[in-house]
């Protein structure tokens, strides 16, 4: 019972922190929203990068695709998109509250599904690439997606699109987006917790450890990789749509496909926290975002240098990440049996392996 309580405590803590944050610090609601989006980034990257060993540098493409699909749907439901974008926001177009919320709801769903379809098509093309080629290939996809969107006049080209304005008070607006991004991230978090514990997690880790052998054992590796990527793309697409609406103005290179900023951050946050773990991305994203905001305030001008140095240091000197380090230091806290018998005596319920249980039972019987 004690064990169960101790195990649910962090999850409850995360939920309570998420709900309490905007009430305790109402001035920072926007920052907290970005933080939840960052946690979502890290979690989605970890599905492939951490659990399956497929290090993508181009996951940000789904973010941008979702953002643009949502924008086109929101506007396209009521106006002519080409005409709207051609005016570059010079002509103010009014959206009623009803139109706004309908457009946003439809747009969010369309963004998720659209990004998912995109990921499945893309996965079919790039999943044959291994190791560094996969990383470089996906980086190329994300970069070219940004460049292509910038040359596409229908969606505003390099000039971008101004999105419909939220009908209501600014404070309500930031709270509205906070609730949406918080809910989305929490859903993703518990979904991942559930699937990592099951068959999917085992298959994913088998692919990471040795893909050829996993194939040999009859695991449909392609199917698992595609499903993992589709989940990541679905959530990234929705988060992109949310983020675009929160910013209010989208543009291809800096906001929608920021490959060298957000696209890289998601990898670094994951590595910092500890890849291949459920809590690693959450912790890494929180620390990284805090570090970023602090350097942006106190080291203005040098913030990027500091960030690059952080990346180098965390990658080169601190490979296993925070959660990985803690796991190495105190493995017994994670149910990794170091001394089987001592552990079995102190905590018999704790993740007992079948072979261990058998041994304990036979010993008890003797």
């Amino acid at each position, binding site marked *: 019972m004690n064990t169960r309580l101790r195990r649910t405590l962090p999850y409850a803590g995360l939920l309570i922190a998420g709900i309490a944050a905007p009430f305790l610090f109402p001035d920072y609601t926007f920052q907290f929203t970005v933080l939840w989006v960052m946690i979502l980034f890290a979690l989605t990257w970890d599905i492939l990068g951490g659990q399956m060993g497929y290090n993508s540098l181009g996951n940000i493409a789904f973010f941008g695709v979702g953002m643009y699909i949502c924008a086109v749907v929101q506007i396209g439901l009521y106006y002519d998109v080409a005409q709207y974008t051609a005016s570059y926001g010079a002509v103010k177009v009014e959206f009623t509250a009803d139109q706004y919320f309908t457009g946003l709801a439809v747009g969010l769903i369309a963004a998720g599904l659209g990004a998912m379809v995109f990921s499945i098509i893309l996965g079919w*093309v*790039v999943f044959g690439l291994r190791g560094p*080629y996969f990383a470089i290939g996906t980086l190329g996809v994300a970069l070219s997606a940004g*460049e292509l969107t910038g040359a596409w006049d229908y969606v505003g080209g*390099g000039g971008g699109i101004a999105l419909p304005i939220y009908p209501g008070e600014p404070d309500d607006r930031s709270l509205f987006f906070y609730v949406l991004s918080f809910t989305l991230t929490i859903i993703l978090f518990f979904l991942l917790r559930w699937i990592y514990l099951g068959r999917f997690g085992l298959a994913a880790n088998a692919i990471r450890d040795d893909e050829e052998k996993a194939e040999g054992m009859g695991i449909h*590796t392609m199917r698992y990789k595609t499903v993992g990527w589709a989940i990541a793309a679905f959530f990234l697409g929705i988060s992109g749509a949310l983020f675009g609406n929160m910013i209010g103005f989208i543009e291809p290179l800096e906001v929608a496909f920021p490959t060298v900023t957000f696209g890289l951050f998601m990898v670094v946050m994951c590595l910092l926290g500890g890849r291949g773990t459920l809590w690693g991305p959450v912790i890494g994203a929180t620390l990284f975002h805090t570090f970023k905001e602090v350097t942006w305030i106190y080291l203005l001008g040098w913030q990027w240098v500091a960030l690059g140095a952080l990346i180098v240091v965390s*990658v*080169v000197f601190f490979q296993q990440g925070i959660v990985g380090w803690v796991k190495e230091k105190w493995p017994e806290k994670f149910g990794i049996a170091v001394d089987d018998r001592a552990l079995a005596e102190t905590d018999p319920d704790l993740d007992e392996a079948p072979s261990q249980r058998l041994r304990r039972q036979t010993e008890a019987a003797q």
Partner: protein
Amino acid sequence: MLDNIALLGIAPLLNVQLLLDGLFIGAIFVLAAYGLALVWGVMNVKNLAQGDFVMMGGYIAFVMTKLGIHPIFGLPVAIVFMFGFGWVVYRVIIYRVIGKDLFTSLLATFGMAIVIQQLLNLIFSPDVMVAESGFAIRSYLGGMVTVADIKLISFLLATVLATLVITFMKYSRMGQAIRATAQDPRAARVMGIDTERVYAFTFALNAAICGAAGVLISMIWVLQPFFGMTYSIRAFVIVTAAGLGNLPGVIIAGLGLGAVEQFAGFILGAELQQFTVVGLLVAILVWRQIQLRRHRQVVR
């Protein structure tokens, strides 16, 4: 777009102009790509900061012009400086990355690239700059084709540099040690080769080659702190297209990429020129994968 293709048909000399421009710039891509292939092949480090080394070399030439010295004399300075810089970078960072999993080197050098480009940005401002060489621009073929003398000179210099490096790799003691280490580091160590020193030298040599390429670029093209990334991508395009350890392939792919980029820039418009490079990378990877698929049996 079709108009532009038609224009090329009407004025065939325009093709010559584009081709020449492409070859001149392509020769420099070959240098950067050769450095990448060297480091990749010898120590299995994928250097994403390649382009930023190129930019550093370019800014060295730029500083020389500001001091009143002709940028061509920046070449030896850049080579020496970048060699030292490469050695230091190896000792501090790369040395710890060798032998780790493949992704680590990619990400570590990506972080390095950010630091370098941001430092350049802080020092030189994000404006586009050129190191003026002051040479004449001549017209050929009845004024239809114009070639700046500096482009010819830089092409020659690039050729000389490449020949030097290749000769060095082939005949010198260190070059042989590098090739031996690339083939089998363990056996090389048994044979008494100090592989640590070989690695450091290889990385430093790569940085020096990149620095030289940067000096040439600063004279015939433009400098900007954030342009480094595209040079890295170009180097990756060339190396993946040619395959590792395929020197003639690197030369052909490099010159070809230069030409393709010029033609694409002319036909599709300047805003899609960057896309051509990146799109080409994706296309090559996908094409190679389709080739591989025939040999690979997958559970479906």
